[in-house]
């Protein structure tokens, strides 16, 4: 097991190395201000048998979970993913054991609507970038409780230092996002958690078999626009007697912007909801570069976009959109949710900011459609749609090379849709500035009470009122049918089925 713990601080909060207490098997300090990333890497042999069996049939597995609560990102952890649980999966070739994946996901994350990768996952375009995963799955998941429970029972229990493991696992309750990565080449499973800036009191113990590296870094001014620069102290607990100073720069794909956005459904949403994106600015993040603003939407199956709607330029312009660049394949335009096996669909839209000099707030609208959902008591069902990811995609200068930097997240669902020299400048998602009083916020419409999830009330058949539908329909249809039959019978009684002229001819013949 290897562990890497990184604190990212604002320059003014930089840690004083003297305040760090480093011993042979522990590092501790108090009042440390900063955001934190924990990465724990397990060897294959350290995993429970059931996970080992799933991963043996796996070529690549990337799980991204993001909290519904908004968080402040910090360089270099600025990439964004929509709230919920995303799974990107490539099965091992010649392996037919992918049937183990869904049961394992349910065991680890709780009851989710997942049958098998073949049925529940959608395929991703793999021909363009072989490094991204072949299939995708998503489900809303507000909390990590089941996962943390699983960690404590299966991964903490066998270890010697249970208390430390427990507290580290418990810490995930407040994590803003969680990444789990596995690929056959490294033969290792890594779990990464991220916490936004706060004040930490630390005591991080370790054992001789576990390597623990702790970094306390602050942001420095980079030398080139595509680069990030960090400086501070690195400590390998057990090896280093004191923190060693460090300063390094690296090219990065993901960058922050000062812009932000909110997403809400226009009311009344009906069966054709429109997702309105309110964007704080229209200016490109980098002057001179070719940049386009994109929205990446993750839509659970209850709601979908009709790709054919996005072909008319007048229509697109009226919504401040410019093009639909990608949509999951095989999105049925009619089927009810309960007959659709896929998790849903994702789409990548290019937005069309107003071309004005000033950096003004503006809106774009994404037309969507609801499927029929299963009947329920009360006649409505709630559907939770995660906030999309918005970013400017800019093409980096010729010759810039992006080697994956030590803090970069890959397999986010959208970077594979762009060329290798693309840089992403992320807009901060903000919950809707709600006009509804806080007390009622959780009960009403879209806002979702400060969460990055929009709620739609979908009208469905009220199962309490539908008891008489079958008999009522049958009775009315039978009544109509009987009336027509009676009319036919009257006709027959009066004149049979023959024609008038027949009678005339019969007479003549006689």
């Amino acid at each position: 097991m290897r562990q890497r713990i990184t604190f990212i601080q604002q320059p003014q909060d930089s840690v004083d190395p003297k305040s760090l207490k480093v011993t042979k098997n522990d590092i501790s300090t108090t009042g440390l201000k900063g955001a934190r990333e924990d990465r724990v890497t397990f060897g294959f042999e350290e995993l429970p048998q059931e996970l080992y069996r799933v991963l043996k049939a796996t070529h690549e597995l990337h799980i991204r979970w993001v909290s519904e609560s908004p968080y402040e990102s910090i360089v270099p952890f600025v990439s964004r993913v929509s709230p919920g649980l995303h799974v990107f999966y490539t099965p091992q070739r010649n392996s037919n054991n992918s049937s183990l994946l869904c049961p394992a996901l349910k065991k680890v994350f709780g009851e989710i609507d997942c049958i098998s990768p073949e049925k529940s996952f959608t395929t991703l375009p793999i021909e363009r970038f072989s490094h991204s995963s072949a299939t995708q799955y998503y489900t809303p998941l507000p909390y990590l409780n089941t996962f943390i429970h699983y960690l404590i029972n299966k991964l903490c229990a066998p270890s010697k230092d249970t208390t430390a493991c427990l507290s580290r696992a418990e810490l995930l309750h407040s994590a803003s996002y969680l990444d789990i990565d596995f690929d056959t080449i490294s033969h290792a499973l890594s779990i990464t958690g991220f916490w936004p800036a706060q004040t930490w009191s630390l005591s991080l113990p370790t054992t001789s078999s576990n390597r623990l590296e702790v970094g306390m870094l602050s942001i420095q001014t980079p030398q080139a626009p595509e680069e990030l620069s960090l400086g501070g102290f690195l400590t390998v607990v057990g090896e280093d007697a004191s923190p060693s100073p460090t300063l390094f720069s690296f090219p990065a794909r993901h960058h922050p912007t000062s812009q932000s956005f909110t997403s809400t459904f226009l009311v009344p949403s009906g069966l054709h909801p429109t997702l309105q994106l309110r964007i704080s600015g229209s200016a490109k993040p980098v002057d001179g570069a070719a940049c386009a603003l994109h929205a990446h939407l993750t839509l659970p199956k209850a709601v979908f976009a009709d790709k054919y709607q996005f072909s008319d330029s007048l229509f697109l312009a009226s919504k401040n959109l410019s093009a639909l660049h990608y949509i999951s394949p095989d999105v049925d335009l009619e089927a009810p949710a309960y007959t659709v096996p896929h998790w849903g669909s994702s789409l990548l839209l290019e937005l069309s900011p107003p071309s004005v000099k000033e950096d003004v707030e503006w809106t774009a609208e994404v037309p969507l459609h609801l499927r029929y959902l299963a009947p329920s008591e009360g006649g409505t069902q709630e559907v939770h749609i995660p906030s999309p990811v918005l970013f400017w995609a800019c093409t980096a200068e010729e010759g810039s090379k992006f080697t994956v930097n030590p803090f970069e997240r890959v397999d986010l669902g959208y970077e594979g849709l762009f060329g290798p020299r693309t840089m992403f400048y992320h807009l901060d998602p903000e919950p809707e500035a709600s006009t509804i009083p806080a007390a009622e916020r959780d009960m009403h419409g879209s806002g979702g009470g400060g969460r990055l999830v929009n709620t739609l009330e979908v009208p469905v058949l009220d199962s309490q009122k539908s008891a008489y539908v079958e008999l009522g329909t049958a009775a009315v249809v039978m009544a109509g049918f009987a009336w027509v039959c009676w009319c036919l019978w009257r006709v027959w009684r009066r004149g049979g089925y023959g024609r008038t002229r027949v009678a005339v001819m019969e007479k003549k013949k006689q």
Partner: protein
Amino acid sequence: MPSFFSPLPVFTSAILLRTTLLFYGLWQDAHSPLKYTDIDYNVFTSAASLITHHASPYDRATYRYTPLLAWLLVPTTFTGTWSLWWFSFGKVLFATGDIVAGWLIVLVLTRHRGMAMGRALRFASIWLLNPMVATISTRGSSEGLLGVLVVALLWAVMGKRIVTAGFLLGLGVHFKIYPFIYATSVVWWLDDDVVEEGGKEKGKGDGEGSGVFGTLWRFCNGARVKLAVISLLTFMGLNGLMSSIYGWPFLQHTYLHHVTRIDHRHNFSPYNTLLYLSSSSTSTPGSSSPSSSSPSSSLHLESLAFIPQLFLSAFALPLMLAKKDLPSTMLAQTFAFVTFNKVCTSQYFLWYMVFLPFYLPTSSLLAHPKLGLSAAALWIATQGLWLQQAFQLEFLGLSTFVPGLWVSSLLFFLTNAWLLGVIVSDIGSTSTSSPVSESMSKSKPKVLVK
């Protein structure tokens, strides 16, 4: 003062109406994000463009028609300076179909009903000058094409053009399935009296024995056999050709889809709510669907829906009425088929509207204006009620499935069923009102003879 109802003014107005709508549509499409063109037209034209790329039209989602339609619309994919005009080719074709159908209506009325031209044009205007018909075809919906096919079938049958009729019947069924109901009425109508009257066929069977076989032998006269063989050959030939080119997707999307699908979104059909209910209780791919425990209907009455529909439209109505008045019987059949169908949208109304000019002249709805007006008022009111409920569901997001949409669809159904009864009685009395019919006894059970 010359009447408006002579061929030139009526057809000029019909063409002008469609041309105006066509140009208006082009203007609206070019200037508004809200399109005049029907979404289906985009489906047809993208299927046509798939054809030109040697692909299957079924690669376009929701293309559920014969490939013939996509082939017909290949000109819409022409490029060059006139491409925008070529794109409207399909709409022009559908609108032309309307006009031809109108002309055939006039022909049938004047030649086979002995109606004066002015009166015939008056009734044909129900179709020719109907804004709903003109709008639907100029928006690019193919239903108008069906209209011309079935009226042409009627025109061919009435004129004893059996080969043409057989071909049109086969083609019509290949195009949209439902015209198969006309097979029974046409075959039943084509008895020896009709055939001999035309003087083209010789009646068979001078006393070729009685009994079941004799009756059957006499029933299978030349015209009936010819019609059956040719229509079957056309239908099977087209299907064979299309399946050999496009394979399983052709059968799946053109035919099986309509038979197997039970999860339609809300429409006028009385079965709609029931289908929603039962489709949601039977299909649960998401094993953990939260409300899969909803009360499932155990009877599955919806699977029997075809019985009243087909009994009336393909058996009882043609058998009882076709010999009395074939065109009006075709109206009654279509009306029954649409009324009792598991899916019903306003485009289906066009299917029977094309036959109205044949029925209305002898209809009690026109003879008794009060009856006619109240029928029209009921038909509009129940439909309006449904539309209002659907609007609340579709755009305001209110759960109006039960009772609103359900009850209004049942009311609309009852209105239609009542109207169908009126139509049936009218067709029955057009012949029985004639004094000779009272003496007609051959086909009447003895018990009922007074």
